[in-house]
């Protein structure tokens, strides 16, 4: 950039401002937006180090140092939340990417355009609905009295299960619902990458007498490797951030399931909305933000070393 337009760089600041005042003005609404909703609340993170009360406000409330964090660590809650958030994200990343690649590869084998269109539309559908509707669908399937799964169990003569009170099944349910909602959407990226593979590679493979399996093993999958690595690294960068809407609408305030389902976002939301607890929730949020920040920087640093073009900054 600097090398291309050295003349622009040497202009004095005021001159630069004057020359680009219209472009600057065009950015003003967005800048104001991010100041008001993202930068202005930042000092509020100070709450994490106070015993916040409404009357004294954020900076008038008594300072307590790291006491809020100590409580979180000693009670074991921070560890539980971190473990759940990371494990769920790891499962989403691993199973999600495998399934997405598998679907993309198979979609590429489909010859009928009509079939491809219809099936893609079907797989894409769950992505469009709100998290609330995901909750409705789960209720439809899982509830004790009328849920479709229990209806099926009853029909075959079994005893219905109180799914909403068995913590052990929920990791499976949440992973399934996540895959249900995101696979069609995620496979598009891989499908696009497959479409971008040089056709001559397949021709060469055919000439060498490669079978369909060898074609996938030695041409398709290696070509998807860069996309795969980049996508995984970026998901690892946000491994501390959970899909709040999914977890909350599936589990909500159901304390019987917290051990296996509570993630950072749901816990913070519950503290703020139902307990009016601003100190602990801010401490958790700050911990998440700092930890997450370090992870993104690391992920980006690695991506940069692999391929500079893909790096975020």
């Amino acid at each position, binding site marked *: 950039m600097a090398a*291309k337009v050295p003349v622009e760089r040497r202009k004095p600041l005021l001159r630069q401002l004057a020359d680009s005042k219209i*472009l600057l003005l065009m950015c003003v609404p967005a800048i104001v937006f991010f100041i008001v909703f*993202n930068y202005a609340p930042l000092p509020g993170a100070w709450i994490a180090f106070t015993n916040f009360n409404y009357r004294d406000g954020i900076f008038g409330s008594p300072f307590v140092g790291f006491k809020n964090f100590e409580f979180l660590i000693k009670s074991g809650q921070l560890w539980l939340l971190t473990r759940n958030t990371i494990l769920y994200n790891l499962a989403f990343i691993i199973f999600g990417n495998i399934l997405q690649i598998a679907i993309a590869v198979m979609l590429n084998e489909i010859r009928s355009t009509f079939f491809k269109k219809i099936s893609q539309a079907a797989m894409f559908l769950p992505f469009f609905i709100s998290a609330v509707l995901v909750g409705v669908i789960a209720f439809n399937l899982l509830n004790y009295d*009328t849920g479709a799964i229990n209806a099926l169990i009853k029909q075959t003569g079994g005893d219905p299960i109180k799914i909403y009170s068995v913590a052990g099944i929920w990791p499976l349910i949440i992973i399934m619902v996540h895959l249900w909602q995101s696979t069609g959407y995620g496979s598009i990226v891989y499908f696009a990458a497959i479409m971008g593979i040089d056709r001559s590679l397949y021709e060469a493979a055919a000439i060498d007498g490669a079978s369909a399996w060898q074609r996938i093993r030695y041409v398709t999958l290696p070509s998807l490797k860069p996309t795969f690595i980049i996508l995984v690294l970026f998901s690892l960068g946000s491994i501390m951030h959970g899909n709040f809407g999914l977890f909350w609408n599936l589990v909500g305030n159901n304390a019987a399931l917290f051990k296996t389902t509570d993630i950072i976002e749901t816990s913070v939301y519950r503290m703020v909305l139902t307990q009016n607890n601003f100190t602990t929730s801010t401490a958790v949020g700050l911990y998440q933000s700092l930890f997450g920040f370090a992870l993104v920087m690391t992920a980006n640093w690695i991506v940069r070393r692999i391929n500079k073009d893909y790096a975020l900054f």
Partner: protein
Amino acid sequence: MHSSDLAEGVGIGPAKPRAIKLDRSDVVLRTISYVTITLFALFCVLPFIMMLSASLSSEAEIRRSGFGILPKDFTLTAYEYIFNAPRQIVGSYIVTIVMTVCGTAIGLFVIAMTGYALHRRDFPFRNHISFFIYFTTLFSAGLAPTFLWVARDLGLRGSYLAVFLQLLMTPWLIILMKNFMRTVPYEIVESGKVDGAGDFRIFAQLCLPMMKPALATIGLFLALSYWNEWYLSSLYLGSTVEFKPLQYHLYNLINTANALRNSVAGSNVSITDLPSNTLKMASAIVATGPILLLYPFIQKYFVSGITIGAVKG
């Protein structure tokens, strides 16, 4: 062995649906692909069909034998309930439609303007502003401080504005718009400058008309986030407004028994008389209907958006 392939000089590259002799492994792979894709597509659509069927079933039959794939004892009772006292649902619809239309229009305009300015090579502050916007995705104050700031200091508690404003733009959509801008040749900007057009006029009259696919994609992402919004409403609106945004209205119907009674018939109906199970499903259908109807038409824009925005998300 594969002399036929050689002779024809074509590969079995998947993008070329040519009539070539198929290897046994090709046939097997293709069969597996068709079967798996069909099954997965069904897995994705089935919950929607079950929801629709449940909304068309009679409550007594659902209570007796649970939800299933086909309507049980077909009836429109649940929908009659909703439309007999349509005040709530119509109010929610109006709130949601107004927010979606205005939010999408305003958000799209600001995002396009910002994306355009940040893409202009001769704009000396583009990197600073880009980083300023991007930084908000790396580090945030967290839910509690943001909530206190917006609800208390900005005084937006109980105001639709708290929801409306916060959904106007995201850093990701601005980056996506900036990436889309690459498809507009820079010569367009230069020719505008030569003709003496101002920066805003170049944007509005020369670039915008060329940006239709980008506007469609980003507009759809915006519209979807407004339509599916329930999270901010739960934080900032709660029960302070009479007409809740549609998905938040649905959220309440599902999670609180009283909300169901109040919304359909006023408080003089006993909760036990209500077809509560089928009513929940019918409400879900009514709240999601427009998205499901529009879905086939908007799907392709999402595909292009994901493909372009995937790598530099």
